[in-house]
């Protein structure tokens, strides 16, 4: 009976493992976006202010991601264009200051492969499912600061009109690509 109890406890340990939390390191992370401009070219921009958390349950190979982006921090290297992007025509940054991506379906496979991650993007007050294509996850000890670190590169494609952002269609592209390069430090 005692042996049976011990066996049950040992078998149960992985399932009880606590997920490890990582905080996004803004100095080594970036959030970029790309959109077609009048059919001529792709215009790139970035968001300068964001924060996020990753939680990984290594035993289960699952995790969660949450990235919160300050919409007003949009930066395309043209100040007046950034003002326009912040206005109700596009990001509506005063009324909806945060762009949030959440996923509780992060999968961490052997060798860090992750694939598509289902998640929810909240933009302009609208929340819709947006899949995140994660190209790789790499976790380990940062050789410079000796901190446990996890990182991933990912892209997401969204249709901005689905989020009520219709200004400039069809000249300005409806499809927007979000690109995340995330490095997060274990808490």
């Amino acid at each position: 009976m005692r042996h049976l109890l011990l066996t049950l406890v040992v078998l149960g340990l992985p399932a009880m493992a606590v997920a490890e939390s990582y905080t996004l390191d803004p100095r080594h992370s970036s959030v970029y976006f790309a959109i077609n401009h009048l059919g001529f070219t792709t215009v790139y921009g970035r968001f300068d202010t964001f924060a996020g958390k990753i939680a990984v349950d290594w035993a289960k190979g699952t995790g969660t991601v949450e990235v919160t982006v300050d919409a007003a921090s949009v930066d395309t290297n043209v100040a007046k264009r950034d003002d326009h992007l912040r206005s109700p025509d596009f990001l509506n940054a005063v009324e909806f200051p945060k762009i949030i991506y959440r996923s509780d379906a992060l999968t961490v496979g052997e060798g860090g492969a992750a694939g598509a991650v289902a998640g929810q993007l909240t933009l302009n007050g609208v929340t819709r499912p947006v899949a995140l294509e994660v190209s790789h996850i790499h976790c380990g000890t940062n050789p410079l600061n000796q901190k446990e670190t996890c990182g991933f590169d990912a892209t997401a494609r969204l249709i901005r009109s689905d989020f009520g952002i219709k200004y400039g269609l069809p000249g300005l592209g409806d499809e927007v690509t979000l690109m995340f390069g995330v490095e997060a430090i274990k808490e």
Partner: protein
Amino acid sequence: MEATMSTWLSHPAIQSGVAPFVAALVVAAVLGQARRLAGAAAILAGLCVTVGWVTGFGMTPFTSTRKIILVALAVAPAAVALEGAPVAARARLALWFGVGAAAIVWVGWPVLARRTPLEAVRVGLPLVLYCGWVTGASGRASGDLLRTSSGVTALGLATGAAVIFGASALLGQLALALGSAAGGVLVVHLVRGNLGGAAAVGAAAGLPIALLGAAATLYARMPVMALLPLALIPLAPLLPLPDRLPRWVRAATLFAVALAPGVVAIVLTYRAAGPVPF
């Protein structure tokens, strides 16, 4: 050929200038016999053309811009109903002042609610006074459509141009559409001389234009100071002019006088926000 047409139709000047002007012209001409209804209906038709083109009538997400569109859709029939009601001019001004003030609080609530009460009052009070005043002054019973429509045409065009410099093409285009529609009403009135419903036209155009200007100070980069000259525009139709002047001369004079403070608002916004970003 198709591509050229598509390019033309997607041009903001067509969407928020020519199209609402023509729509209002047609509606005012067709409904001309329904004197009280024609002007406000024409304003609504002009706005609807631009809304349908630029942003659509969907109400999700229910943003401040969509609140303004909803107010514009609701105020026109209310203004027509009130036009015929036996309400004294001063009471009418007070009523529309209250409607304008309440409307901007509702539109700006997402921003005002995030601030401390004191800060919300500091930011909100000038906007409440502006929207209340412009709506009240535009919707009071003057009985003279020539004067009212000259004033709201200038108000819409000046607000639209200032807002576009303030970095919101969407809000600016909606204001331009309302100004252009009021211009359509004015032209029909000048040609036929039989339209009525001056107060209804004033309120139906004045309230949403005021809200668009005020919202641009909250959600875009139009400075609050630019609202000060815009607030003078509703006074322009009070300018005394000799009756012996031809109607079109009176309309052009009133429009020019009304537009003058509007130009100041445009300059103030340009100086604060810089050139158009697109």
